[in-house]
């Protein structure tokens, strides 16, 4: 599979402070790529560098297999739709007028306006002034602007910001369906992992300008093996067995409940057999699954590979 976005050691510093630090982004064609990081991690700056809105201090950007530079800028932007630091729009104009301005700038037919209004469900409010819109509606208008002209690449910066739960759900299904519907590749940023889990195929995690993890969502989920909770009848006997095997154990609040660190299946099988033989009385065994939030936290705190 080809990369639609590729950055090579992309850096941006403001007054000597690194905001984006040697970023190597690889977004596969047809994927929905979740660009995740806390506020201030450098997501917006990175996205603005992809679009040529911000100039890199060093490093390079390739979109659709072409280097983003003065020469290729217009040709690349023609195939790209974006929503950066939303919401945007001219408040004294209607949604339709706003879209016709963007259609004009993109040099595309105004017929496309009705289609994008339909997609973001703003058809009924198309002739209302954007100044009267709710934040969620403005956000949807921003998406409509990005969708105009059926771009091959969509770059969306926190598009779910300001939406209500129903709106977020709608946006998720809209974005997740996009690669199949239009063949577009999507780079979407968020500070909420849980929001992304349901729509992305690839993930990049950014903190303090550095990429902590990049890969398929499943690979990130592999890191999700959490602690094991063990319920036994006889705690002292169990601890004896566990100590003998060198497994760190924590007593839980509830009686007869112990917490063990993540263990491989083989070690766990031997442990359960030994516990049973010692008469500790194994009643229950639960493997906790780390939520993406926890994985993210462990990634950002250790600033390295996941444990």
């Amino acid at each position: 599979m080809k990369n639609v976005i590729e950055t090579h050691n992309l850096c941006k510093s403001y007054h000597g402070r690194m905001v984006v630090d040697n970023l190597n982004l690889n977004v596969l064609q047809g994927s929905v790529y979740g660009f995740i990081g806390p506020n201030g991690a450098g997501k917006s700056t990175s996205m603005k560098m992809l679009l040529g809105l911000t100039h890199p201090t060093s490093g390079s950007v390739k979109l659709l297999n072409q280097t983003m530079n003065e020469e290729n800028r217009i040709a690349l932007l023609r195939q790209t739709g974006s929503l950066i630091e939303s919401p945007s729009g001219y408040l004294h104009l209607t949604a339709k007028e706003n879209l016709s301005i963007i259609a004009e700038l993109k040099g595309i037919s105004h017929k496309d306006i009705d289609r994008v209004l339909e997609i973001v469900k703003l058809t009924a409010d198309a002739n209302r002034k954007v100044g009267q819109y709710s934040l969620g509606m403005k956000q949807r208008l921003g998406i409509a602007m990005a969708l105009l002209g059926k771009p091959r690449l969509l770059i969306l910066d926190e598009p779910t910001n300001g939406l209500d739960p129903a709106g977020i759900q709608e946006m998720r299904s809209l974005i997740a369906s996009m690669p199949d519907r239009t063949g577009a590749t999507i780079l979407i940023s968020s500070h909420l992992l849980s929001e992304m889990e349901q729509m992305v195929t690839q993930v990049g995690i950014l903190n303090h300008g550095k990429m902590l993890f990049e890969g398929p969502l499943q690979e990130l989920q592999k890191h999700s093996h959490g602690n094991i909770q063990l319920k036994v009848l006889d705690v002292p006997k169990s601890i004896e067995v566990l100590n003998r095997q060198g497994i760190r154990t924590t007593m839980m609040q509830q009686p007869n409940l112990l917490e063990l660190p993540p263990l491989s299946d083989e070690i766990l099988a031997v442990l359960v057999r030994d516990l049973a033989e010692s008469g500790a009385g194994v009643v229950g065994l639960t493997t906790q699954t780390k939520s993406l939030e926890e994985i993210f936290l462990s990634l950002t705190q250790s600033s390295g590979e996941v444990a």
Partner: protein
Amino acid sequence: MLKRCIIAENRKLHASPIWVMFFLLPIISAGYGTFNYLQNLEILKDKWYSLWTQHTLFYSMFFFPAMVAVYAAYLWRLEHLGHNWNIIMASPVKPLDLFAAKFVVVAKLALLTHGFVFLLYTFCGKTFAHLPGWPPIELSFFLLRGALGALAVIAAQLVLSMLIRSFAVPVFLALIGGISGILASSKGFALLWPYSLMQAGMNANKSKDVLDGGYGLFIASCVIWLIAMFILADILLKKKDVRA
């Protein structure tokens, strides 16, 4: 590409408050000029010419730079607000075309305003000052010259408003610009400073033509200032990061 940008820019003016300004300022300026003329009839004996000086003196010194500044500040304000910079700069158009489109729109507004000023001048001359005949054709020519001189001011104000996110600061700078224009003219540097060019072109407050014989230099100065401002705008748009 420029044409598309101009169409987009024109659409932004729809339902915009700028039109209030367009009608109001020239009316205030004309009212003030006519009043001044009628109060000083004993020293202002050149009829249409005298009324012209009264109408255009304040217009070209204060009202016009301020008005152009408001037009320019308004058009950039639309982009400064609500992160619209990001949208326009991520559009597949040359950044300088975005600037040029705003220039064309402000120039169009300024030219229309000029026409309106002339209309008001003629109307006031006939209705309030009861002047005989019609304004000398030469005066509409002064107006055209003023418009040419104004182009440099428009470009300068567009650069200022592009850089300064505040609405009021560039308008204030335009007022200072207007005053600096008078000072430059009085020191004999009228053709070197953009804010003087418009005043010189309008021949405001002078019965004798300031530009008599100096057309080549006047036009050259207008063109040089204009090109300089466009080059500056292009460099700024290309080199500066978009701060929306």
